[in-house]
């Protein structure tokens, strides 16, 4: 009985989630309409039409070279994402617990934030040469401050009254972290993580293009050299699709599952 109600609740939730994609699709079609208008004004050479682009895309996804490049880019951005999120969140959480650590780390993060990503690419090129390492490093350095800020704010704003409640029942440090601090922290981390995921794709492609180290960025460089504009557009669309999939297929469902309690608190009519 309980398993059945849980399954029903899951089906209901996933149906709602998929249904909400219609609204998102409507927004994307508005964008496509504007794109088409731009195409009709400037012509195919400057701005290929959405249809042309999709046709090119459907051709290139069958090329082994593209599949290889997409895999490389995906691996690099995933590695960069995981490292940035891992280090950033851990350092941020430590800074949230210890004010001394916070005073020490905050200026460092500000310095990292202040250096433009393009400068990091130059440094990474010198350190790693023309390999995936430079793309990964650039992603980590560019995306780390966001996770750091999320972790710091999340831990620093934890509810101390709830913490005292947990202590009054003799809960140990680990249990208090899991049950009191972590659920609160999650709501600060998710915006940081979704931003990081989007940034990771963009910066990987940029680093690849500039460091000439293969991947979709490398493909873009080649297409640009050949003035193959539909291919350039198709590659851009591919990267955008990857970013959308990461956010709406991987991160948002996870967030929805973890933050069900928040939805329960919303008054009638606000439920989405």
């Amino acid at each position, binding site marked *: 009985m309980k398993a059945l109600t849980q399954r029903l609740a899951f089906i209901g939730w996933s149906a709602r989630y998929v249904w909400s994609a219609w609204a998102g699709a409507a927004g994307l079609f508005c964008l496509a309409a504007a794109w088409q208008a731009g195409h009709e004004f400037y012509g195919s050479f400057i701005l290929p039409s959405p249809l042309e682009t999709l046709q090119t895309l459907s051709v290139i996804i069958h090329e082994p070279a593209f599949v290889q490049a997409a895999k490389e880019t995906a691996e690099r951005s995933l590695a960069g994402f995981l490292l940035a999120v891992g280090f950033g969140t851990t350092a941020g959480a430590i800074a949230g617990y210890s004010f001394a650590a916070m005073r020490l780390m905050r200026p460092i993060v500000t310095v990292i934030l202040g250096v433009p990503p393009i400068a990091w690419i130059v440094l990474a090129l010198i350190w790693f040469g023309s390999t995936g390492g430079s793309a990964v490093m650039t992603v980590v350095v560019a995306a780390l401050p966001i996770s750091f800020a999320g972790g710091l704010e999340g831990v620093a704003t934890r509810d101390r009254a709830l913490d005292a409640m947990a202590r009054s029942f003799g809960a140990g440090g680990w*249990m208090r972290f899991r049950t009191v601090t972590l659920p609160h922290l999650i709501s600060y981390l998710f915006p940081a993580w979704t931003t990081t995921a989007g940034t990771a794709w963009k910066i990987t492609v940029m680093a690849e293009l500039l460091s000439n180290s293969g991947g979709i960025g490398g493909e873009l460089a080649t297409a640009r050299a050949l003035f193959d504009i539909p291919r350039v557009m198709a590659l851009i669309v591919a990267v955008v699709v990857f970013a959308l999939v990461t956010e709406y297929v991987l991160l948002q469902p996870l967030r929805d599952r973890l933050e069900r309690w928040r939805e*329960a608190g919303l008054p009638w009519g606000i439920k989405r």
Partner: protein
Amino acid sequence: MKLALEGVGHSFLGRAVFENIDLSLRAGEVVALIGPSGCGKTTVLQIAAGLIEPLRGRVRRAYRRHAVVFQEPRLLPWMTARDNIAYGLRAAGTARGLRNEAAERRAAEVGLHLRDLDKYPAELSGGMRQRAAVARALAVDPDIVFFDEPFTAVDVGLKRVLQDLVIEAAVRDQFSALFVTHDLSEAVRVAHRLVVLAGGSGGLLADRLIEGRPGTRSDREIFGIVEAWSQDAEFRELFDGARESVS
């Protein structure tokens, strides 16, 4: 003797809150701690519950478990009512099946429906949340329960119901309790003994037994006791807030 505070004093940032407090709780005894606002009642309770260390004096404990009911319910918003009530048992390492069973039993005792147990605190009314907080404290089978002005935020009718619930539970489960309140009639209603804490970094002003047992005193008797004590010099501070703030 379950709990004894001996010569306890505390200060925040060098400003003394109270000095030299001796207070003890016998088995099965409910002691009400009363005093004007800002006199350090909550601090005494937090010291007794081990949430803060006293700067002077010491606390002797001779019991297994205690529980605290705070002024706000302090339920975890990301857990259902059931998991919240079972929280203390989870901290004590009780198995999931046993703690769910205990949570359901205690929820029924405080008047929560089974169907409310799967709801999150945000979906419960204020009164239900405070009931859940009381159930969470009772669920660990405590030897001492510390109540920190638990029913200040609920309406008069519900306040009575919750007070009766506490009186009943104290008799049934034989726990001792320290009940902090600023309401003299509430203190007279729930406690065996009344202790008055002075404002302005003093110590304890008075320590009196209340006639009869909690739960057997009629409203008329309670009113009579409150009326008589409000004339008393030792209780004057409680009713004197207005005059003190003028001077």
